[in-house]
């Protein structure tokens, strides 16, 4: 199967909403997810010659893999990269409040948020505080350590353990909704 601009445009049209919901379940933010999906399609276009699949299903799987890569970069850099989109000269449009709500419904975000709150409450207090300060308040590890009166290494370890526990609880839910 040869991926050209027309084929990718058709895939984008057919799979866009599902990919948007997929990305929203991982970013917990519909507008950020729209950036992720746009970047994923622009990246897929740039790498289209490297696609070795033969079927549409493989092309869709390849798009999801690229979307995961864009999400990974986003988590690592704490922000969505739009390099491929910028190279194409495309600026993602703003998303209205109604649309954001519809996307979040499609993504099943309310259930996921409730699950995150539940799992966060179940964490040991030390880990829960560390995760809150790091993720919600966006403190650096040095500041977080100073706030809690622990060393930066201990702060890293608490955040890491807390996030791992949350991921273990949330991922099966995300995958169950993806499979619907």
């Amino acid at each position: 199967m040869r991926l050209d601009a027309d084929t990718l445009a058709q895939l984008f049209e057919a799979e866009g909403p599902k990919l948007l919901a997929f990305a929203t379940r991982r970013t917990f933010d519909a507008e950020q997810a729209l950036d992720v999906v746009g970047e994923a399609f622009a990246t897929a276009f740039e790498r289209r010659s490297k696609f070795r699949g033969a079927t549409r299903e493989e092309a869709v799987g390849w798009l999801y893999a690229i979307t995961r890569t864009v999400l990974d970069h986003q988590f690592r850099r704490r922000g969505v990269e739009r390099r491929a989109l910028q190279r194409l000269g495309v600026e993602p449009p703003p998303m209205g409040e109604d649309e954001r709500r519809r996307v979040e419904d499609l993504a099943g975000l309310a259930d996921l948020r409730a699950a995150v709150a539940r799992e966060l409450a179940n964490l040991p207090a030390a880990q829960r505080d560390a995760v809150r300060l790091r993720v919600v308040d966006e403190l650096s590890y040095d500041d977080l350590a100073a706030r809690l009166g622990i060393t930066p290494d201990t702060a890293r370890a608490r955040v890491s353990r807390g996030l791992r526990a949350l991921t273990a609880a949330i991922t099966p839910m995300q995958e169950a909704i993806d499979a619907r």
Partner: protein
Amino acid sequence: MPADRHDFPALDRLTADVAQAMRAAEAADAAPRARWWRRTPPLAVTLLALAVPSAVALHATTGKGQERGVHVFRCDGGTTVGAAAVLLTGVASVGRCSATPQRGRIVYRCALPGTPGLSRTAGSRAAAPVRRPCA
């Protein structure tokens, strides 16, 4: 789920913008190749540009333009000149050999005196060359 598309105007717009940009980028990628082909003369033109001067040169040295056709001829030096080879070896070969039309045949004579010339029946590619002494 295409039915949901109408509920997502931002996604619709992003889809349209990306599709349009992809098509434009693809067309821009293809454009330099097309321009290259337009710049390069076609093979037939190149061959004609080589063949016409060679044919004129050959015509001038083969007896007032009365020859019936030059397919293959051979000089004593062992040079075989075919239609394509004429294009390449051109003037050098023509300088060494001359063709004189006679009734029903073409006689190719070598330019060097004292060497035998060759003749073949005009219009018959399969005819074996007949050795004739040079005048």
